């Protein structure tokens, strides 16, 4: 499987591994740090290893994995050719490859805004806005986007509000929908 579209620059791989290990080590660190706060508030049996045992065990294991990946990143950086076999086999196994782009960050920011907007202007309006905006951003004409978004909002309302009787947030403006 030759992938000409996704060149495997070793530096990209090192950065990826480095970030991954940094993230994992950070999560493990936080978990270990706050495990100290877990108290024995409830009664436990005499032989129960306690509520702290499992989180500590898991976060220490994670820490080991994180360090392992950091070492791997260092090996890739300093030993040319190390681990290239692994990349090929990973591709053959069909792992979807994705490079970290930037467009998703815009969507993420829109979604964060959306969550706040649900509380302000209610579910229906904010969903219509976000869906329209997203479809325009993905290259649809504005009137197509607005129309399809309207259909989506109606479908969601019929499904959830009428059928499943879920109370969708109305927002603080007191709009009737």
């Amino acid at each position, binding site marked *: 499987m030759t992938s000409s579209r996704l060149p495997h620059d070793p530096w990209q791989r090192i950065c990826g591994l480095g970030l991954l290990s940094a993230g994992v080590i950070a999560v493990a660190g936080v978990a270990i740090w706050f495990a100290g706060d877990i108290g024995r508030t409830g*009664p436990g*049996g005499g032989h129960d290893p306690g509520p702290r045992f499992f989180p500590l065990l898991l976060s220490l294991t994670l820490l080991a994995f994180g360090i392992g990946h950091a070492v791997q990143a260092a090996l890739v950086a300093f030993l040319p050719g190390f681990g290239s076999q692994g990349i090929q086999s990973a591709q053959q196994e069909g792992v979807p490859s994705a490079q970290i782009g930037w467009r998703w960050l815009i969507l993420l920011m829109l979604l964060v805004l959306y969550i706040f907007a649900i509380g*302000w*202007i209610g579910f229906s309006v904010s969903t219509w*806005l976000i869906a329209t905006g997203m479809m*325009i951003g993905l290259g649809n004409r*504005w009137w197509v986007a607005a129309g399809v978004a309207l259909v989506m909002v109606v479908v969601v309302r019929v499904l959830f509000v009428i059928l499943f009787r879920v109370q969708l947030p109305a927002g*603080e*403006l007191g709009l009737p929908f």
Partner: protein
Amino acid sequence: MKKYVALILAFCLVGSACQPGGPGSGSVESYPTRTVSIICPWAPGGGTDQIARFWANALEREFGRPFVVVNRTGGSGAVGHTAGATARPDGYTLTMITFELSTMHRMGISPLTFEDFSCILQINGDAAAILVRADSPWKSLGDLLDHIRQNPGAVKMSGTATGAAWDLARAGLQQAAGIPVESVVWVPTKGAAPSVVELLGGHIDAVCCSVPEAAAQIEAGQLRVLAVMSEQRLESFPDVPTAKEQGVDWVAVGWRGLAAPKNTPVELIDRLVATCREIADSDEYREFMEKTGYAIEVRLKDEFREFLAEQDALWKQVVEAAGYDQ
């Protein structure tokens, strides 16, 4: 294209800057205008869950709006009770409060007490019982207690999580019989049903739970009831002797009730109490409780509150004796 997005966002911000009208709180007469959830702090399929589902159905029929049971389990009932007590006091979140509310604040699980709720009514009260396998050597409560006395730490019992209703019930029983509480190893499980399975599989020696929770197995002759911790013998199981008859002066009743978060408008509570009283008096309720074997014990509103205050004091002393207090 980008300008459309910008336009929309601007509209969104302008919209948000508009005067917030405040959430339209529905009036008492129109209650309920949407789905009401009844939080059940215990797992699906257990006694509390079954009763909660009956009440949800009954209330749904009375009010003409969906009442759904939401199981929020974990933390010896603290999770569900906390979710119920901290919900918005608008009548749209009710809680099936149970016995554990009387004890959890003594054990430092949660600061919650019955005072964090507006009581609606008590709907049931089941006495604890001690069950063993039909092939077990213990024929009476005395046999079992003697065995525990002679072999401390040998008998394994289960029925609930550590420090939950039936654990405290058996702790109180041991205390009343003059046996140290730690002579029995309590194996925490998620509830009576899984403990009964453990008992049937021979992995533990005895189960402490209410009789109806194991009625099917008792009627099938797989389990034997040694004693029931009530004032009088149960109507549904007249052959089972009480602990008092066997010389141990101890009564333990696990109660269940419906409550709303505290500060719920009084008119709303009164409306709920009125409707619930009708349901509690209905033949259908009696029939359901008879079918499932649970005992009806109804106390309305303030009476329920007084009962809860009494329970609070009673269990304080058991929790302290068992060394569970924080």
